[in-house]
């Protein structure tokens, strides 16, 4: 038995703390607590306003008990079709643009200038909030589905390219190396060595983005970018809470169906 071991035996052991210095550790804890107290105490709540508002809220909730699909049926159908078109078109265009950008943004297969350019596009796309972008595009292209389509295509790029690039960075390098060792060209290396490894994930992410785009298209209508959101906005403006409730139920139902379908597709793709 070494003398070192004798010293250690009988001593308690605990996991080394994340922040070594106790002074720094406790200072940070106290600062966070002080910040939380200050933050919560700065929230102002007008309780009498809340009391008045409860009644409005309750009427809205009650409307869900008697949703009215029929009196604005044509508007709802048209809004829904418009949203579906925006969703499908923006997802398809988004995917088509995301694949090359995702490839360029993967640091294990890209070259530096292309990498920086593609990462720049992704960062820009992710930095711009969908609603802000939609407001800008509505200002440029006018009210209607074109602005919604452009907004969602652009947002899809930021989402899909980033995750695809990360997936490509995590592939099994040896499989790609084996394809390279046969004398394959760059495109063949992608087709045989990389693409099969990321395809299931790409399809899963695309399905996921499809249902995000549908939900977003409902929100974007509120700022004038067309789709079911525009119909919803009109219903609220007219205080037709029962029609609004019907529209919301339709949106929820559609998202659930999409979610279910994407689950099936992802399972089959494994």
């Amino acid at each position, binding site marked *: 038995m070494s003398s070192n071991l004798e010293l250690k035996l009988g001593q308690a052991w605990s996991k080394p703390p994340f922040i070594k210095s106790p002074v720094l550790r406790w200072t940070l804890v106290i600062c966070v607590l002080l910040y939380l107290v200050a933050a919560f105490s700065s929230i102002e709540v007008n309780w009498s306003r809340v009391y008045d508002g409860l009644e409005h809220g309750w009427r809205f909730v009650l409307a869900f008990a008697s949703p009215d699909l029929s009196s604005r049926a044509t508007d709802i159908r048209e809004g829904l079709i418009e949203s579906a078109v925006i969703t499908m078109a923006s997802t398809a265009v988004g995917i088509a643009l995301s694949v090359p950008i995702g490839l360029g943004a993967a640091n294990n297969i890209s070259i530096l200038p292309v990498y920086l350019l593609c990462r720049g596009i992704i960062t820009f796309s992710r930095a711009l909030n969908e609603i802000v972008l939609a407001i800008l595009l509505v200002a440029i292209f006018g009210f209607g589905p074109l602005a919604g389509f452009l907004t969602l295509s652009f947002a899809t790029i930021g989402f899909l390219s980033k995750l695809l690039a990360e997936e490509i960075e995590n592939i099994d390098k040896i*499989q790609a190396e*084996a394809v390279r060792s046969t004398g394959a060209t760059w495109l063949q290396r992608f087709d045989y060595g990389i693409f099969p490894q990321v395809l299931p994930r790409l399809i899963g992410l695309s399905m996921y983005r499809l249902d995000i785009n549908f939900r977003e298209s409902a929100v974007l209508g509120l700022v004038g970018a067309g789709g079911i959101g525009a119909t919803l906005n009109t219903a609220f403006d007219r205080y037709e809470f029962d029609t609004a409730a019907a529209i919301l139920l339709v949106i929820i139902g559609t998202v659930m169906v999409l979610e279910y379908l994407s689950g099936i597709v992802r399972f089959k793709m494994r």
Partner: protein
Amino acid sequence: MLQLKKLSKIYKTGDKALSAVDLTVPQGQVMALIGPSGAGKSTLIRCINRLVEPTSGSITLGDVEITSLKGNSLRQQRRRMGMIFQEYALVERLTVMENVLSGRLGYVSFVRSFLRKFPQKDIDEAFRLLDRVELLDMTDKRADELSGGQRQRVGIARALIQDPALLLVDEPTASLDPKTSRQIMRLICEMCEERKLAAIVNIHDVVLAKSFVQRIVGLEQGRIVFDGKPDDLTEKELTKIYGEEDWEDTIKKDESLA
């Protein structure tokens, strides 16, 4: 056939993987490359097909200088070198057939390979090779459905369909059980014999190497410290390659096999 002259590789981290390696492998010779982990065995064979860029020195295959090649001409030379990998390196989600045919990628256009429309003679050759490695029934199975030994046989078929002059084999048996290991080594050696291929086989299992190959080269810290027949690999030589250890069993086992 294959000639390395003063081949050196220094990695960006400053690690000297190979220092001035001189090596000649004649046509039809199967050569085992042994040595401790980190001795540079993997680097050596990856320098030959330029998956790793050598720092200095020259490599000639036949009468072609490999080290200065770029683009198309590099890819044309890679076709002449089939590579077999430690963890098989099959593309898991592609079928067995696609994996074998991927050995023809250097010969067909992107459009053909993308549409999976390979020339009939390539497909026939793939069937012939799959039959030879006893996997003809597995043609349309996905590679990840196969066992280790079966995958390595697909890996061998993929390397051979390239119609190579040289096989680069990186630890072909490291993830296989002892029986499968022997079968795979035997298959590789038979194929080289049939097709008069030169081969460099990186291998950890000294006993296995000694019972199959004609020549053994020992690498230690990027230098060749042994080059000779399997019988010449004595206890003293093994100590030179791997360091001090009781090597009696490694040598005795070989005698009992002979």
